[in-house]
């Protein structure tokens, strides 16, 4: 992931909201990243689960990896999706943990919150609760979660250490953080790190 930088947190947050607002309302537009079912297939999601979900549940998915690939979620686990977007990973997680499990999605973008809440209702997913919030201030009590998942969001936080501290706080002792994000193998010049446009595009 990128190093900490001098990027303005509020400005970065505003641009991230603008980008993902567009993905929520116009999922079929062209973006610099893949979206929807083709992306889920590319990242190795279980097609049986993806195929069982409605188009609304999948079409605005814009993750960068598969947070379920290194450890399988267990029935009954309590999950937090940090940066839940349109809710795709919440819906996958809810399928995996079953009716006895719980999933809380946290996101900051109004259009994503609206879409994911509507989709959860349409799916009859009573074990999903979508909350407005930031990764740096997760709206959850201490030690609530068995697992925190996240997908392509921590990289968009200007203060990653604070985001990780919040995730650590809401996890139970022995709980797991399983997330996907991008990382670079070639050095990124400071001028690029400080360019907000490159964080979101």
């Amino acid at each position: 992931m990128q190093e900490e930088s001098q990027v303005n947190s509020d400005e970065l947050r505003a641009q991230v909201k603008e980008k993902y607002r567009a993905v929520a309302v116009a999922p079929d537009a062209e973006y610099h990243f893949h979206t929807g079912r083709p992306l889920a297939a590319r990242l190795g999601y279980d097609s049986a689960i993806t195929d069982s979900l409605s188009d609304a549940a999948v079409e605005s998915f814009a993750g960068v990896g598969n947070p379920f690939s290194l450890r399988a979620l267990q029935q009954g686990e309590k999950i937090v999706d940090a940066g839940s977007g349109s809710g795709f990973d919440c819906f996958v997680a809810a399928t995996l943990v079953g009716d006895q499990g719980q999933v809380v999605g946290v996101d900051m973008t109004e259009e994503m919150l609206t879409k994911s809440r509507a989709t959860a209702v349409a799916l009859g997913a009573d074990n999903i609760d979508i909350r407005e919030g930031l990764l740096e201030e997760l709206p959850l009590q201490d030690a609530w979660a068995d697992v925190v998942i996240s997908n392509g969001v921590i990289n968009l936080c200007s203060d990653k250490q604070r985001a990780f501290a919040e995730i650590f706080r809401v996890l139970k002792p022995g709980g797991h953080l399983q997330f996907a994000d991008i990382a670079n193998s070639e050095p990124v010049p400071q001028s690029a790190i400080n360019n907000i446009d490159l964080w979101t595009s």
Partner: protein
Amino acid sequence: MLLDSGFEDVQIGPPVDTFGGASGETNARQFGVYGYAFLARKPG
């Protein structure tokens, strides 16, 4: 950063060509950007 935050047993999955074929591929190739899965555990 994960270890600094108190996590342990950190695992990193293989790289995934997240941006291949998308318009962001050029920037991704320039800096060797790929997607990765990460797993870490809170002690206890």
